[in-house]
């Protein structure tokens, strides 16, 4: 299994959760991980750096010979009014969220196609369907992930690779630490169930997408709340 953005937040929780389940895990982030587990391999890279990502996959293929599951978790957000958002921020968010997810999905599919099976899980967000003010760029980048998920599902179907996405509500991680409390409260009020997402809400959906019985489930975006 490969999990991007695995140094902290949801990514790190995913590593711990799936290590516990016995998976060999390759993870990556820009900075070194401050933890280690037997069976966990960490790479320091920018998920949009094509050469480094290809090198990582070459090494993974050489040492493991296969990849069963990719979880495209790496993502960055920047809550700001559109009028105050620099283009550099737009490029950074799209680079990590869209280019990074595409690049990992493409390279993962190249490995998975050899065995004609695989699971790719992308990360969307409820900020897209909820059209949250202040999230124009983040939500747009994740809207791209929705379309990417749906089209890759079709293109990779020939190789029995499924591509789905989970769209979580806010989970208390670094990603939303800078969001003002009143904004978070307003967001929770809009949800049918007024609480933050839990990590287990996410793994519940991922577990469903990656189970062998879900080989007929592809191109789906499952929002945890809307």
């Amino acid at each position, binding site marked *: 299994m490969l999990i991007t953005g695995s140094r902290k937040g949801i990514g790190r929780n995913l590593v711990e959760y799936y290590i516990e389940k016995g998976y060999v895990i390759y993870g990556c982030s820009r900075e070194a991980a401050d933890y280690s587990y037997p069976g966990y391999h960490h790479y320091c890279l920018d998920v949009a750096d094509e*050469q480094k990502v*290809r*090198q990582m996959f*070459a090494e993974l*293929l*050489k040492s493991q010979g296969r990849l069963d599951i990719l979880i495209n978790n790496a993502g960055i957000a920047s809550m700001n009014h559109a009028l105050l958002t620099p283009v550099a921020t737009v490029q950074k968010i799209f680079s990590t969220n869209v280019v990074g997810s595409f690049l990992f999905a493409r390279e993962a599919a*190249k490995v998975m*196609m050899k065995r004609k099976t695989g699971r790719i899980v992308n990360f969307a967000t409820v900020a897209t369907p909820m059209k949250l003010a202040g999230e124009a760029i983040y939500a747009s980048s994740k809207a791209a992930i929705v379309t990417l998920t749906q089209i890759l599902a079709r293109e990779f179907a*020939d190789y029995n690779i499924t591509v789905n996405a989970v769209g979580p509500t806010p989970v208390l991680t670094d990603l939303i630490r800078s969001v003002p409390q009143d904004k978070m409260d307003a967001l929770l009020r809009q949800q049918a169930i007024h609480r933050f997402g839990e990590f287990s809400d996410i793994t519940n959906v991922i577990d469903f997408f990656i189970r062998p019985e879900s080989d007929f489930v592809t191109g789906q975006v499952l929002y945890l709340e809307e």
Partner: protein
Amino acid sequence: MNIESRIDQLLFAAIEEINEHLPAGQKIQAEKSTQLFGHRGVLDSLTLVNLIVVTEQKVQEALNVVITLADERAMSQKNSPFKSVESLANYIVLLVKEKTN
């Protein structure tokens, strides 16, 4: 073995790997003269995609050189590199030499 022969070898190995998944009658002849894509080409677009992916992987594994066969440069060539096994082999040699020199 010179680089040209090595690339031929890798390309033929990629063709053999692709052939394992093709039905009898649609297998690709591992010969330099085989027409791959376009007028008189034997490959459909998906099989060409598969061949490109497998060839890139074989080059990377054997020579530790990362090449991208299907980029804007390839698409803008006057003569498509994907026309025949020979043109594809020549294009790979060009890319590998550029990366290693």
